[in-house]
């Protein structure tokens, strides 16, 4: 412990520790190493809170607990490397054009936090607000888009239905012919939406949480939760036991497994979600393009690859191997939208796990077990929610009061029959 805090002191004071153009220049000239982004720590015997899952949600929750509420004696347990779950393998779409007013408000707060995140964390997360375009191929999707646009604008979110001409102007590669099987009638355009460097968000939160004294434990797997008289007492891990009154489940695809350790059942099913990238080509696509009817979305990263995603796999699984079927259908659908891309080559496909809920909304807050909190049910859309989820979960854990912003996402809503209707905006859009 002594060495750890010593290190912390050093790293806080060390010149050049802050990232900036100037720091970069100095580092380049002196060729000195940058300080470590985060440190290895010994597992302490007790923490005020143990956060399970070193993805963006766990890390953001830890960061805001430390930063906003002064809770520093907390640990994040990650069975593999930081960001190895959905946070390291998602297609990084950020947007707030959801369907329900609760949803729109919630995601809008997240987008605003993301806009300031680079400065807040002193880590460039490269949030590229290049615009998000959902295509309408039939009247019913146009209708849902109008609905979304209306709710969005009532909530002050920039989102509007555009016609085919404007779609063609934004994305000239699209096949706009009327005789396409999925003709493009228009779209929902959301200028503040975009993509982000997902790994940078993870690393930035981790670095900032570490600097505030949070212990990040990679290679540390939760294996059991001790519940006595309906309250959390501690946890077991592959590296030893920890006593703690608070366990926060931030394990997304593995949420049910962790909740089961506390005896809590969840309305969640784990489905793989696959993605793929092509070889890089010169930049030509600067809008995120989504087609709900075709179950596909495309964006081009700063490196030039096209990133493809789709809807979740058709059956639940904890396997992340991926399927050929996915690549065939995603390629087919991309070419239906942009036929000129047939010579581009798919470079790599991968899969991640998604914790799907019946109403495409998260499950956040308290559970029947005292001290056991959930921040799960993030499905295919949770990356964009990390800042606001971390902020509100931290507030709940620190104050014991559920913030209004997330009151509707409570676990009890299922037993009460109060589902949130986000299916129409979240099924493929991410």
């Amino acid at each position: 412990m002594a060495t750890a805090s010593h290190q912390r002191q050093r790293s806080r004071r060390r010149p050049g520790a802050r990232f900036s153009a100037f720091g970069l220049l100095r580092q380049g000239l002196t060729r000195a190493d940058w300080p470590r982004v985060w440190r290895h720590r010994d597992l302490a015997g007790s923490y005020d809170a143990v956060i399970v899952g070193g993805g963006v949600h766990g890390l953001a929750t830890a960061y805001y607990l430390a930063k906003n509420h002064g809770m520093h004696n907390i640990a994040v347990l990650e069975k593999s490397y930081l960001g190895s779950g959905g946070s390291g393998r998602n297609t990084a779409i950020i947007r707030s054009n959801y369907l329900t007013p609760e949803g729109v408000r919630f995601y809008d707060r997240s987008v605003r936090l993301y806009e300031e995140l680079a400065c807040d964390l002193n880590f460039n997360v490269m949030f590229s607000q290049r615009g998000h375009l959902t295509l309408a191929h039939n009247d019913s999707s146009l209708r849902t888009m109008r609905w979304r646009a209306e709710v969005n604008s009532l909530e002050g979110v920039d989102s509007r239905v555009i016609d085919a001409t404007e779609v063609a102007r934004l994305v000239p590669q699209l096949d706009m012919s009327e005789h396409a099987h999925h003709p493009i009638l228009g779209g929902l355009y959301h200028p503040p939406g975009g993509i982000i460097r997902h790994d940078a968000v993870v690393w930035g939160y981790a670095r900032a949480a570490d600097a505030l004294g949070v212990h990040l434990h990679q290679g540390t797997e939760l294996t059991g939760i001790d519940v006595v008289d309906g309250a959390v007492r501690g946890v077991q891990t592959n590296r030893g036991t920890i006593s703690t009154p608070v366990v926060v489940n931030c394990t997304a695809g593995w949420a049910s497994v962790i909740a089961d350790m506390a005896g809590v059942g969840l309305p969640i099913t784990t489905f793989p979600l696959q993605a793929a990238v092509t070889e890089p080509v010169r930049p030509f696509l600067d809008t995120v393009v989504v087609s709900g009817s075709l179950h596909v979305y495309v964006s081009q990263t700063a490196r030039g690859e096209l990133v493809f995603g789709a809807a979740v796999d058709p059956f639940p699984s904890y396997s992340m191997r991926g399927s050929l079927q996915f690549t065939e259908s995603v390629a087919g659908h991309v070419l239906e939208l942009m036929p000129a891309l047939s010579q581009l080559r798919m470079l790599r496909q991968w899969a991640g796990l998604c914790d799907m809920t019946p109403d495409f909304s998260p499950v956040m807050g308290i559970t029947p077990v005292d001290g056991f909190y959930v921040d799960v049910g993030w499905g295919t859309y949770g990356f964009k929610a990390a800042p606001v989820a971390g902020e509100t979960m931290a507030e709940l854990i620190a104050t014991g009061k559920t913030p209004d912003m997330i009151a509707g996402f409570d676990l009890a809503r299922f037993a009460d029959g109060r589902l949130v209707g986000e299916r129409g905006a979240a099924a493929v859009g991410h």
Partner: protein
Amino acid sequence: MLISCPLCGPRDATEFRYVDERRQRPDPEQASPQQWRDYLYVRANPSGPARELWLHRSGCRQYLFVDRHTLTNEVQTAALARTEGTR
């Protein structure tokens, strides 16, 4: 992934539709809201052996009870739902 349909033989998973976990419908007259909504929404979602209901959609159109490992996707057994346990 292959599923051995008891009628058609082994076929690719894309021919089938995953329906749900295999579960018991509570008596609708007796069920409390909590029980009924557990049935509607809460899932075991195991990482490991799972008992599931599938439909051989592009084949014989029969519902199957499938025992599958959700980490390896290996199917242990697939039985006709309509006769399982009756013979």
